């Protein structure tokens, strides 16, 4: 096609959301008084005007085929008011004004294979990244991990059994575009990249790759007479940061790419300040199609938390109260030298006191 025939884009940016909002929400925008929770998966919001709006939340497979999308729309039209939204964790929310529609909507969703829940103190759906389905650097799959885990955690999604809400996330590389929450299941590489020296100089902008390394372990080198890059394997932390800018530095390995589990990440300012998640388990095999080892550890942590934490304690609040030694004791997970941080700022994570629980 000649350039002259190309269509100029309309740079409209982010569209106006009010046009897609339920009329009751539009009318009461900024005027909501309180909400309550009639049953798992259902929220009722009450406005100062006296208006009410119901939300029915359901888990999906996130990667939606057109048939599934149309089914969700069909249910939205027949049983709800044609207005929906998606949460940050890819749950779908149907918004309805009439309480009488709530139960038929739940029944229709359940009948069609969707799972109603994910509100209040439940384990809501895992948020995840792209994985093998679409990413260019993934160490593992994402959708498959979520499917496997949610099959096992579905009862916790549908109920209010946890001390507080639980957000689980995954990330399929160590850049971690996902992978933060109360429990994060993230890729952990354990060996330095394997370099294809025939390709490096043609494919990679070598100074950028050198600059990308967090520990300055990469340097330019001539290998077999060819300009390439080499890695100081004693310094290398196996993070894989060099792999995206330089695909011939393959970091993923069928055996040595593992999973780590981190807990206690909390985005909210409620009670304490927001926290990042901390390492609790690693060396977990990257074991498709169902990753049973990772799921077993997650279930163990959830079980311990459920039995031991007080109401309203998120996982980080709970561990802050009982202390890390007791967390490892209660979950039976090993505490190793790898749990002691040595990255910048690590001293702040060391115990400089006699505060010890016996």
């Amino acid at each position: 096609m000649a350039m002259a025939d190309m269509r100029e884009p309309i740079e409209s940016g982010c569209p106006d959301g009010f046009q897609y909002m339920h009329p009751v929400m539009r009318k009461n925008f900024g005027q909501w008084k309180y909400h309550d929770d009639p049953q798992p998966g259902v929220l009722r919001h009450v406005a100062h005007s006296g208006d009410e709006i119901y939300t029915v939340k359901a888990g999906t497979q996130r990667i939606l085929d057109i048939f599934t999308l149309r089914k969700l729309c069909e249910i939205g039209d027949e049983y709800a008011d044609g207005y929906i939204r998606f949460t940050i964790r890819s749950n779908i929310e149907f918004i309805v004004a009439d309480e009488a529609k709530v139960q038929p909507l739940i029944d229709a969703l359940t009948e069609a294979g969707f799972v109603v829940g994910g509100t209040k103190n439940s384990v809501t759906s895992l948020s995840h990244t792209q994985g093998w389905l679409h990413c260019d650097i993934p160490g593992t799959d994402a959708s498959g991990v979520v499917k496997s885990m949610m099959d096992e955690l579905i009862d916790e999604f549908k109920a209010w059994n946890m001390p507080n809400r639980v957000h689980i996330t995954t990330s399929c590389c160590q850049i971690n575009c996902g992978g933060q929450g109360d429990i994060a299941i993230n890729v952990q590489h354990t060996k330095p990249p394997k370099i294809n020296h025939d390709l490096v100089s043609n494919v990679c902008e070598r100074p950028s790759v050198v600059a990308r390394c967090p520990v300055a372990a990469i340097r330019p080198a001539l290998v077999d007479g060819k300009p390439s890059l080499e890695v100081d394997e004693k310094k290398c932390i196996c993070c894989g940061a060099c792999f995206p800018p330089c695909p011939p530095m393959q970091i993923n390995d069928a055996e040595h790419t593992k999973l780590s589990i981190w807990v206690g990440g909390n985005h909210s300012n409620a009670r304490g300040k927001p926290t990042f998640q901390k390492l609790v388990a690693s060396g977990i095999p990257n074991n498709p199609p169902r990753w049973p080892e990772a799921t077993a550890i997650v279930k163990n942590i959830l079980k311990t938390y459920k039995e031991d934490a007080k109401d309203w304690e998120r996982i980080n609040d709970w561990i802050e109260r009982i202390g890390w030694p007791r967390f490892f004791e209660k979950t039976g997970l090993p505490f190793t030298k790898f749990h002691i941080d040595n990255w910048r700022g690590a001293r702040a994570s060391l115990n400089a006191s006699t505060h010890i629980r016996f």
Partner: protein
Amino acid sequence: MADKHHETPMLDELEKGPWPSFVSGIKRLRDNHEDERIRKVANSLLGQLEHSYETRKGYWKGGTVSVFGYGGGIIPRFSEVADAFPESKEFHTLRVQPPPANYYTTDMLRKLGDSWEKWGSGLQTFHGQTGNIMFIGTTTENTQHFFDEINDYGWDLGGAGPCVRTAMSCVGSARCEMSCANEHAIHRHLVNNFTDDVHRPALPYKFKFKVSGCPNDCQNSIERSDFAVIGTWRDDMKVDQDEVKAYVAKKGREYIIENVVNRCPTAALCLNDDDTLTVNNKDCVRCMHCLNVMPKALSPGDDRGVTILIGGKRTLKIGDLMGTVVVPFKKLETEEDYESLVELAEEIIDFWAENGLEHERCGEMIERIGLVNFLEGIGVEVDPHMVNNPRQSSYVRMDGWDEEAEKWFQRKAEEKAAAGA
């Protein structure tokens, strides 16, 4: 239908169990879709994914694909195993910006799905981790056709690469009693001021805006965005004492003391003998816990605005960073208020574009140059709300002390005069 299917014994395992299966969904496209093109793409995709499951490796590589007039917004994917799985050899994703808080009508969802069925794989995700609608899987040629079609009815690409990225907002004032801000206005004022920086990647690295209506920060904005805008209030929280008494009557005094009063991080609450609640609003840090437990009794105050934190990001390259308070409180009521918000974002992005190293996030630059240099660069005065505690190291040159102290007293005097005026 006589299409020959790739065997997928490992993926078949993901069709078992009660949670909805994405594998079954892709198989529906392969087996039941009327368009042969979509059937073949789905079959090829399943074949390549099965190969990944068998070998535990990914087989997509990036490249350069964009639509006419833009430099970003597409995630190009070319298969490295196209010989074995040729029908999905080009499998690009279009990132499309959703409205703030991800509201849709079913009519609009259907329309988007119809367009994607015409030009793409029939697979989509609401939403990716950055917040985009992800239309997953099409050829270089059809990328342009699909964009042209949906752009005509109001949808635009998001960011990909070193650019301003698609923003995210919580459910917000449209449905939540905790929200202290108009997330829609904030979100669109900010990101739509930077459409050029969204579509034509030319910054040191990515830059993300996220908006949460209250300090519960449901968008993880402090952890995950370069520019976090969070609703808050600075007058007294509202207490409905009758509702407090109703909670006490329902849950018991011990429960309220244990779960509300004792969990207050600054000991700002007291449950009185008559089952009313006293709040020391000067000590309250607006953490939201007591409001979350008793939403019917406790509400944010009326003098609302936002707190702005800068520099949050995930691991690469120097480790996870939380955002830092740069604006403790800002009113957002008038058009001028919004203009000054956008100007602050412009100042920050300009300063970072000038001073950030290649592939350095804004927060990493602040870590490298120090918060004070950053504040001076963007013209924001220091404030004790920006720190957990003052410096504890004496290793600093302080021969400008008197001038700096004078600045503080002058600013305080000006604030007092302004408040009195």
